[in-house]
């Protein structure tokens, strides 16, 4: 597991001189470029923005459902859990492709609205932009958010809730002062599990992103294929891995601090 990453690390200090031939004398040039070129900076920021939004949307949408299953479903909890986990195991490519079918120029939304007479021309703003990427990713990763949040809610001792009520908390206050802090580990786990893979997602931006929705994975792929600058691709990969790791660590640390004070 470590060896491929180390090989990549080594290569990131080389220079490409021709097809599969490298100057191995060691240079920081690739990292300087990865960090300073405007195009890379735009793509880094866009990737982080898209995954940040996706993570937020997914967690916010999943929380009420997890809450419902944990606190209101009495029997058949497992049926609900299987129902919401099942889509996760079906083909990722197909789930993303489904959104292309829905949002596309001749897609389900446009052709449906046209045949109903609501619009005359297809709407072009539906697809090939960052919003389409966020919508698609939010749907594709929904399941991953539900489970950790559900587990952390399910673990909450019900007598703690009764105690809060007995001590005079309204249901509203109780939710914010007891339930939410106790559910924080689950929310944290869900956020990390969604944020990391979506930053590096390749399929979704390629299918529904268009040139405005390209993300860092597209440039990595480009450097390793038509761009044929492998060392630069390696440097960009490792830089994005590091940025993600630092962000996740900072996020986890501040969330812990926050819950510790409560």
């Amino acid at each position, binding site marked *: *597991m470590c060896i*491929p*990453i180390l*090989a*990549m690390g080594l290569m990131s200090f080389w220079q490409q001189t021709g097809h*599969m031939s490298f100057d191995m004398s060691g240079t920081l040039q690739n990292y300087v470029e990865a960090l300073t070129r405007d195009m890379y900076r735009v793509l880094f920021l866009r990737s982080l923005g898209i995954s940040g939004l996706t993570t937020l949307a997914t967690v916010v*949408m999943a929380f*009420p*459902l997890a809450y*419902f299953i944990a606190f*209101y479903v009495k029997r058949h*909890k*497992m049926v*609900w859990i*299987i*129902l*919401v986990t*099942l*889509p996760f*195991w*079906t*083909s990722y*490519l*197909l*789930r993303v*492709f*489904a*959104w292309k*079918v*829905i949002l*596309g120029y*001749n*897609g*389900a939304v446009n*052709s*449906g609205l046209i*045949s109903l007479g609501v619009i005359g021309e297809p709407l072009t703003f539906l697809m090939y932009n960052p919003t389409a990427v966020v919508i698609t990713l939010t*749907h594709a990763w*929904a399941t991953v958010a539900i*489970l*950790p949040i*559900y*587990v952390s809610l399910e*673990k909450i001792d019900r007598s703690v809730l009764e105690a809060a009520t007995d001590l005079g908390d309204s*249901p509203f206050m109780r939710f914010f002062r007891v339930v939410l802090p106790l559910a924080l580990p*689950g929310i944290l*786990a869900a956020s*990390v599990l969604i944020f990391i*893979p979506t*930053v*590096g997602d*390749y399929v979704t931006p390629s*299918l529904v992103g268009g040139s405005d929705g390209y993300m860092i*994975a597209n440039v990595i*792929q480009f450097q*390793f294929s038509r761009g044929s600058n*492998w060392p630069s*691709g*390696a440097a960009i*990969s490792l830089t994005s891995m590091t940025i993600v790791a630092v962000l996740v660590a900072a996020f986890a640390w501040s969330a812990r601090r926050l819950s510790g004070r409560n």
Partner: protein
Amino acid sequence: MNRNMKLASRILGTYAVIYVAYLYLPVLFLPLFSFNDSIYISFPLRGWTLKWYQVMLANEALHRALMNSLKVGITTALISTVLGILGARAVTRYRLPGQKPVVGVIMLPLVVPEIILAMALLILILRLGGSLGLVSIAAGHILICVPFAMVVLMSRFEGFDRSLEEASHDLGENSWWTFWRVTFPNVLPGIVASLLLTFTISFDEFIMAFFLGSTDPTLPVFMWNQLRFPKLLPGVLALGACILIASVFIVLLAEWFRRRNASDTQTGDMIIG
């Protein structure tokens, strides 16, 4: 108070139903259009047809891709489950020095974006003079499947009473026979679940198969190549519908195996990892 509870329950219940509909509806568009008698994927529907399924069945390249995916999937499932058994056994049974970092490294593929792993493997394989093809795809798949296999198997090994093994030793069995006659039957449901899950992951996996493959594609890469040609789309939809049904079936089977005797909290811990 009680009325509030009822109201909240009703609102949340409605939300839950809408949410599940939102999860499933987009995916259901694929089978819907696969029965549509038109080359364009758009409303209004033209009428029912099975011709896209016939087109799909007649496609030779698709058969090859399917066979490739099956080969890679079965190899991946077998090897990563064996590695998972060894890993899970080592972690749950013995306390080894440096165990935590090692497990951390094994679990690393879960938190490194897949494209970076794929590129790192690509560099390694080509620098070592290896060639791309089904073998390199399987190697990549094993790397990402071992953590899943280990987690599934660990919950099984942990739920297993060690005194049974001790009893077997006391009754004169050696380690090999104890494993074979006591441990193995007990963890069998976990092993079957691990085989099915790793197979499903490998079968659906696209990134590794795309970058580590040669011109001989697996099924997801084959589909990806077809997506560029609008003429071929309905055939892809028919194929997609079949794959969806097959994946759902395999996953339900795996769930059923894993849930036998494994309690609910273990399921949750598995997901959190």
